[in-house]
């Protein structure tokens, strides 16, 4: 599992990366009440705005960590945004993205590095 400075986690499986937000991010946001996801087939350049997440007290965007095409979205968190608080690292993944350059992930933080980053 890799981590970005924007508090997203990334898991690579072949050329598909699954993206979600970290426990730390979910805690900071507080009760998540709304998630807006892209559509399958949408393509995004690195750092383009890809999803919106709103809590009772904050609104933030999730930017594409790398360039790629959306191949799956998690409808469960749209139905039940509270899932993002309950299981951010598991059931509450946001989307899966097919990417061309898997080496782009190398530059992101490891779990230990991320822990140090938020400490």
């Amino acid at each position, binding site marked *: 599992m890799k981590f970005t400075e924007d508090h997203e986690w990334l898991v690579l499986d072949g050329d598909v990366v699954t993206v979600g937000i970290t426990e730390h991010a979910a805690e900071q946001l*507080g*009760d998540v*009440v*709304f998630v*807006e996801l892209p559509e399958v087939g949408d393509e995004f350049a690195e750092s383009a705005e890809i999803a919106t997440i*709103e*809590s*009772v*007290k*904050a*609104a933030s965007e999730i930017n594409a960590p790398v360039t790629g095409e959306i191949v799956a979205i998690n409808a469960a968190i749209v139905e039940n*945004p*509270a899932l993002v608080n309950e299981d951010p690292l598991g059931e509450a993944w946001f989307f899966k993205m097919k990417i061309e350059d898997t080496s782009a992930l190398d530059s992101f933080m490891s779990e230990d590095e991320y822990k140090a980053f938020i400490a």
Partner: protein
Amino acid sequence: MTFEFTDYKPYDFANRRHIGPSPDEMAEMLRAVGAESLDALIDETLPRDIRQAEPLAFGPALSESEVLLRLRRTAARNKVMTSLIGMGYHNTVTPPAIQRNILENPAWYTAYTPYQPEISQGRLEALLNFQTLVADLTALDVANASLLDEPTAAAEAMALCLRSAKSKAKAFFVDAECHPQTINLVKTRAEPLGVEVIVGDPFADLDPKAVFGALFQYPGTHGHLHDFSDLCAALHAEKALATVAADPLALTLLKAPGEMGADVAVGSMQRFGVPMGAGGPHAAYIACKDQYKRALPGRLVGVSVDARGNRAYRLALQTREQHIRREKATSNVCTAQALLAVVASMYAVFHGPKGLKAIAQRVHLETARLAAGLESLGFEVEPKAFFDTFTVECGPLRDVILRSALAEGINLRKVGKTRIGVTLDETVRPETLEGVWRAFGGDLRAEGPAPAARLPEGLGRTSDYLTHPVFHMNRAEAEMTRYMRRLADRDLALDRAMIPLGSCTMKLNATAEMQPISWPEFNAIHPFAPADQQAGYAEMVADLSAKLCAATGYDAMSMQPNSGAQGEYAGLLTIRAWHRSRGEGHRDVCLIPTNAHGTNPASAQMCGMEVVAVKAAENGDVDLDDFRAKAERHADRLAACMITYPSTHGVFEPTVREVCAITHRHGGQVYLDGANLNAMVGVSRPGDIGADVSHLNLHKTFCIPHGGGGPGMGPIGVKAHLAPHLPGHPVEGEGAVSGAPWGSASILAISWAYVLMMGGEGLTQATKVAILNANYIAARLSGAYDILYTGAGGHVAHELIVDVRPLQDSAGVTVDDVAKRLIDCGFHAPTMSWPVPGCLMIEPTESEPKAELDRFCDAMLAIREEARAIERGDLDKEDNPLKRAPHTVEDLVGEWDRPYSREQACFPPGAFRVDKFWAPVNRVDNAYGDRHLVCTCPPMEAYAEAAE
């Protein structure tokens, strides 16, 4: 007998009404603060280089009765006529029960915006009724709790379409039959966004491929009624959105915008019992389909549950708002027109669907009778089918007829070169029609059976509206009065306790200042009535402007902006126009400190500016090095900076002159946010310290009440070089930001009465006492709490930030817990988590006497003690009075298994025993409400389900 003459003046307003502490109390408070005298405190608090040179001199302060006499004389210069001008403004009957129990009732008009839902349930219910009323009449899914005026709502609708439409086109179509002020404001809003506005006949000129949205008026400004269904479908086929500006009274008889396929509807609720007031205030509405609700600007009331699972209302989806999204917000709107929306909603409750329909039918049939009479006199009316408006071709007779009408006491509308427009309303009487006929040269009687209806074929309304029980209650006045009283009793307003909201200046709204707004000479004036009928208004605006200029050091004032945020928008547009006039139109960078009010970046974004954030230093001041570096880096493109003074941290920053100088050196203009002007009037002037523009929140510093979330007024003052670029007249000029030339003109009387009664000396004294009151609270609370920012003299300005974050670590107590516990003590919480997250910002204002300040401090200190008890382990970490606050009557009955007593729960220090304010609900669940969004009155059984 002999007696000694006293110099005591029983009616000396400045000393006896607005200044809370008595001279003896002030002496005591100064000792607590550690200042030798009031003047010494001010000298220590304000940097010397920002003090104003000359005292504020407006002549002597007038007593209450003298001021009312003065305003009577001025009001008498306005001529109350029967205005049949239309253009979105109509005569209306405010039911007396509503006028007295709401409009003239401090329980309603002195309340704050309902951000603390537990003590705002009354007006939240009334606003939910408003949203239900609008959603029903427009047949759309979601309506907000009102906007400033119809043209502003139309401009917001355009922005919503731009944000939400999938079409990539960059043009917006506007029906030429829209009210002229609507077209003007849409153009003003569109231009900085790079949106082209195409004005034309939608049935001839609209190319759906070329636009991302279109706006139609229904009925048109000249009375035409069209079914826009085909146009809506054509727009949707090209992924563009349709907005209809609709008259809500007409919608009781006519097919609704939602039934035509419109995505958005806007309009004015003014004719639902809200006086015209020469332009306002009144409530506009905006409604949309469910899928666009997250792009809806302004406030939205939603239904949630409290800690017991009982129904509770609250503001929903607040993350859409500017204070969270800043430059990414949908809009900079933060205020609504709550008081006027409440009046409109009560008008609908008062009349019910049957009553509203009957009013609409009568207006229509009398319009038909008027048309038939004119036709019998040989005139041709256009259109043939209409609701309440038509125009008449008069040829060369036009001006003679207009003059004859004036002689009858009637204002008609000039249309083109040879036509006259007429719009009727619910106040129409036989004499009205007969007067119009006489002006057209006919001697007819308005008698006999009503003529046939002349609504267009196929446009009749077939769907139901206002089916909710609240619109079907027993309409006996006894019952209505009690309903309004019940709602008022659920809210905590200034008539019960101080509302120490930082940055909001909840000062006294004196009764004498409020009285004139009910006079017909002020409130029955049409904003587009001839100038000679508004001579009193002109006099008032001129004198108030001169006094506000004197107090701020500016050279000119525009009264148009209807809120502080609209003032920011108008001020930045003025700066932008000035740059353009000098061939420097490329300047588009706006420097804004990170601790600025969220509206600042949102307003800059609306004006097409790029926001560059400037850091705040450790002590909360603008980081001067960062400011200088960024001004230099963007020197080629620097348009403006936006600063707040005293800062949003409640400190008079000594570097403010330097910040202004740096901005000017690099070609920019200084926008000084006037939100904190209550700390400056009479002691320091923005115009002297280097600012070029400011808005003045008349609803803060100058006594217009907050109305439970609006009205407001945010006029802007500018230096002379900017004066030619101020907003133009909404009908005759360009670049207007408000539908009426003086914004919400009628409530200017409140501010005018205030400055006349205070005089320059009284205003200066108010500022000084506001600073004393804040410093007294700081002195009493320090030790128990850290006061975050203080100026050079160790003093705060007119407000202070109290750090409650340590309680989170030591006792698990959050800023929310403190705020809600203050409700148990009988107080409205201070401003929460702004500008510093997790802290409270307290602004007492000069109006509060020492006893009330002490009651508040006692409550705050007691809360600290409760937190200490948690720290010691004497109170449970979860099950304690702070976490469970606020407590309600429900907590007094039934089982009690908590580890603290009911006595402690309900009667903490500060709370009154006999006059205890009981919150109507326990703590409201915010997340539940946002996850299960309901923004109209749900059926009664739905509440029961929600609770399960």
